[in-house]
């Protein structure tokens, strides 16, 4: 499951456009993988690592 899929699992109401406006998930092709580079959503809190890990489980 990708990071954007995990975020969507936590916040099912997110739209695709949110990921190119108020949220930015980025991959710098440096081996670190996907990460949340920006979270400026007006109402939803940035998910914690625990929340993201729980989705994977």
């Amino acid at each position, binding site marked *: 499951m990708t990071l954007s899929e995990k975020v969507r699992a936590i916040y099912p109401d997110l739209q695709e456009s949110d990921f190119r406006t108020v949220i930015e998930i980025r991959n710098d*092709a440096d081996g670190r993988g996907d990460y949340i580079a920006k979270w400026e959503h007006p109402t939803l809190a940035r998910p914690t690592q625990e929340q993201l890990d729980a989705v994977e489980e």
Partner: protein
Amino acid sequence: MAKIRIKGDTSGYVDLQAPDVAGAGSITVPNLSGTLLTSASDSSDFPSAILTSTSDITPSASPVFDMRGINTDQDISAETWNKVTMNTSTVDTNSMIDLTNNRVTPTVAGYYAVSGMIRINFDTLTQIVLVGIRKNGSEVAAVQYQLGSDNIQNGQYPIHTTIVQCNGTTDYIELYGYVGDAATFSDITTTSQSSILSGFLVRAT
């Protein structure tokens, strides 16, 4: 009309004539040996230091870079900005291309014209693609391809030329892409159709 005529040793002559207008002018002849040139002189008479053609005006020292991702098969996630990995330096006049970090770090300060293109193969048809040029990780310019439904297919997606100012030491330029659904960058072996990040110095600072 006053003029001075200087005759050649065997034939011909040259007239020195003042214009028939008010005012005073002067000509200073330097203490050097050489040939005076006029507006009618042939370009071959000019010293080599004088610009005589467009090739003299275009600076041969202007930095140029062009790097490509050829058949890199870079798998990318949906709804994620992915830096495009590059594996080939096509042109690099000033040691600017860093294939390890997939970036260009100009070594001459100035304004650079930068453009790019990403070759994208989609796992399924998608609705949106963005291509962006970034300086030091921050977006400088981006172009968005979007349809009303999932109908965007495999192909090359270019971004227009944009101007990026670089300090010539630490500033770097990268190419990023965003897709609505999972895809693969640079899944093609043809060099001319591969992902590209290219540019050149427009004006030094």
